């Protein structure tokens, strides 16, 4: 492990953060989606991050086994689904209610800022390591 593993580590982080941004885009795009039942209503999704461990079987206290990050799954927002009376809507149930999504736009914007800042700092790490490697390659050149 050394400078070259930095690319692997930040690569996994860039991937994870872009999945986060994708999910936010999906949530925001579906914020206005109406559904005919509470079960079918759109719920905001959020990726769950976990660090990548090479192997937990031969755990070595001093070895940072790779150390990247992955998306371990998706969690769904448990904010209660609101219903609205809208008889004219074709999706409306027998009582005339439609069910709104539980996406909170402000929350999504905040998460988007967090994800994009994380992405940027990983890019910065990658750039710096690349420069260091280039300088190491040209070490001793007259």
């Amino acid at each position, binding site marked *: *492990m*050394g*400078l070259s*593993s*930095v690319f692997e*580590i*930040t690569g*996994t*982080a860039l991937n*994870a*953060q872009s999945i*986060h941004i994708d999910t936010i885009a999906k949530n925001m795009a579906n914020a206005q989606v109406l559904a005919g039942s509470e079960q079918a209503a759109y719920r905001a999704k959020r990726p*769950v*991050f*976990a*660090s990548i461990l090479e192997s937990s079987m031969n*755990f*070595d*206290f*001093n*070895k*940072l086994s*790779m*150390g*990247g*990050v992955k998306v371990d799954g998706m969690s769904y927002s448990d904010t209660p689904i609101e219903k609205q009376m809208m008889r004219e809507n074709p999706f409306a149930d027998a009582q005339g209610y439609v069910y709104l999504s539980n996406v909170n736009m402000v929350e999504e914007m905040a998460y988007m800022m*967090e*994800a994009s*800042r*994380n992405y940027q*700092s*990983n890019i*910065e*790490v990658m750039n*710096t*390591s690349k*420069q*260091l490697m280039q*300088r*190491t390659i040209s*070490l*001793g050149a*007259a």
Partner: protein
Amino acid sequence: MNIIDKAFGIHAAALSFRSQRGSVLAANIANSATPDFLARDYDFRTALKKFSGDQVVAMQSTNPMHIKTSASNEFGDLLYRVPTRTTTNGNTVEADVEQAAFSDNALRYQTSLQFLNGSISGLRKAITGKI
């Protein structure tokens, strides 16, 4: 230790320590949003002691199943960062602290490179006899 090793001094070892530390800090930054991730780092003092052959206090392991500690590692223990504040998701990465540490580490890596470049050009002058 041959003459070339003598000319390079500590900086060759410093490069390997700095690149190793760089990847640990990169892993910290990569995991800045991972729940329950604990930020890690090396202690420079221990790494320096290891390099100069000083005695490093290590725990004795009497069983092969014991977790390996400082004795087995070239740069000393990979320690856990003490966070200045707590978070709700148990993550101890403080993005600004890690970024500062990463750029400090990069700068020191470049310093070592600069010293190595100096020694190499000195050696070259000695070999060729030309300026």
